[in-house]
């Protein structure tokens, strides 16, 4: 699904002493099949922007079109929109509520009008997708699960509705390195099958570098750059101005260059870079 954002603006608590401009004149497009990273420092408007995509925040100024749905119209078909745009919040495990994992995962599908059998099948599929054993966890209380399992169950709760766009707000926050890896690999696997378009908010540039084909940089509610990770990490002015970090691959390439070893590769993930380095020394 294509998402078009045009001149979007948003102000919190307008006309009060607490007034705060969160978004200002944002225009960009997310194409079908993109994995888009949204980066920027805390308070730059990333979450506010993302909450627009499934109308959790209504458009104040500007336009957003998701697929065929115009979010700036007076009436928006929220059910269809939210079924199609799945959103995973930060620390999603804190939203689990039902008495069994299965009921929790089925909550979305049932709300979106799946029949009982369809919801059951969707829950089974989603739980297996996130790597939980359906027969083992389905009848457990979500509060009996371990932290990592809870997050997976919560992700399954979003995936079960089979969204065609998936919005992830810092999906790996608070996980150990292995947990992070697993979540991101899950996202990659999802892209191959279930969801066509993925939008990730992240502070971790390694994730952005490795998984995103496009990246949007926000600063104080303004769109600073709409580019590819490769180009972004070559623009030191933007990276330093917004206090973003470089991914490790870029850092390693620079350190090598300082020692006179130039790697002629735009590789941004570990495997490709190590192959490129190995190639350089073989030659």
């Amino acid at each position, binding site marked *: 699904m294509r998402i078009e954002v045009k001149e979007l603006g948003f102000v919190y*608590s307008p006309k009060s*002493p607490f007034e705060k401009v969160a978004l200002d004149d944002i225009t960009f497009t997310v194409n079908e099949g993109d994995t888009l990273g949204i980066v920027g420092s805390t308070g730059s408007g990333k979450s506010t922007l993302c909450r627009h995509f499934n109308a959790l925040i209504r458009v104040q100024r500007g336009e957003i079109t998701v697929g065929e749905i115009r979010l700036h119209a007076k009436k928006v078909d929220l*059910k269809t929109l*939210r079924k199609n745009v799945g959103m995973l919040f930060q620390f999603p495990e804190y*939203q689990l*509520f039902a008495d069994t994992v299965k009921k929790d995962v089925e909550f979305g599908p049932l709300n979106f009008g799946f029949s009982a059998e369809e919801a059951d099948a969707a829950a089974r599929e989603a739980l297996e997708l996130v790597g939980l054993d359906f027969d083992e966890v389905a009848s457990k209380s979500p509060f009996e699960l371990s932290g990592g399992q809870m997050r997976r169950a919560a992700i399954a709760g979003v995936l079960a509705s089979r969204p065609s766009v998936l919005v992830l707000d810092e999906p790996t926050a608070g996980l150990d390195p292995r947990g992070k890896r697993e979540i991101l690999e899950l996202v990659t696997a999802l892209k191959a099958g279930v969801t066509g378009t993925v939008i990730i908010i992240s502070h971790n540039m390694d994730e952005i570098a490795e998984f995103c084909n496009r990246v949007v940089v926000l600063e104080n509610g303004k769109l600073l750059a709409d580019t590819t990770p490769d180009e972004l990490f070559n623009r030191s002015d933007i990276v330093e101005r917004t206090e973003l970090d470089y991914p490790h691959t870029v850092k390693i390439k620079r350190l090598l260059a300082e020692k006179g070893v130039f790697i002629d590769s735009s590789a941004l993930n570990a495997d490709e870079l190590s192959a490129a380095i190995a190639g350089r020394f073989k030659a």
Partner: protein
Amino acid sequence: MKDISLGQFYPADSFTHKMDPRAKLVLVVAFIVMAFLAKNFLSYFAVMLCVISATLVSRIPILKVLKSIKAIIFILIFTGILNLLFYNGETVLWSWWQIKITVEGIIFSLKMVLRLVLLVMGTTLLTYTTTPTAITDGMESLMHPLKYIKVPVHDIAVIMSIALRFIPIISEEVDKIMMAQKARGAAFDNGGLLKRAKALLPVLIPLFVSAFRRADELALALDARCYNATPNRTRYKQMKFSLRDVLGVLGTAAFIVLVVALNNNFWGAYEPVASVWWLFSV
């Protein structure tokens, strides 16, 4: 939900904002007494004048203060109508069965409504100009003498300030959880009462879970920093009684004197025009 203005502090740089919270608390009590002292319309006008001048020195838009009345609109209507219908007056205008509307009843219910409006407006000024923390600190300091009869004043104050501190956090949490469930297709604003109540379960359960988690973490954090309420604690923000507070007290005292004077018609000031201003003497 973001606009929830509990404690409804209104930031501004004004005379009243800078006053000592203790002085403000005492003055609010004095103000309440003043509002109850007022007998005739003229003294009510003095109370109103007091509210208006306090609002002006607080630099709070008068509309904001008037808005606070919205919260008690039903109480106002209820009080007004009850007093209007059941006041035992003499000059009957209209009567039916046990109910009669009298001139005295109209005047009395007008006064009651006016009193409530003034009370609410005056007391909201306290919460508009004083942060919840400052109010708690002020209360703790004022309740200090109760320590001698073994009232755990400090503990009460800590509980109060923690509760106040957590209101915005919990309200933000409600917001977040509601959004997350909405994203999964939950609808909170349609269906009957029972359906709506049931729809809130997916919000309430995670909310309670997280509230307990937070309470646990907070207790640990307090313990980890060896928190205890020893009597020798010092404060980061010292409260100081200043000239400003003296002025505030004097101003309020002046209004109280004015109200009492007008109540008793000390100067006979409005007698010459009593025929025109008869309303004020009733």
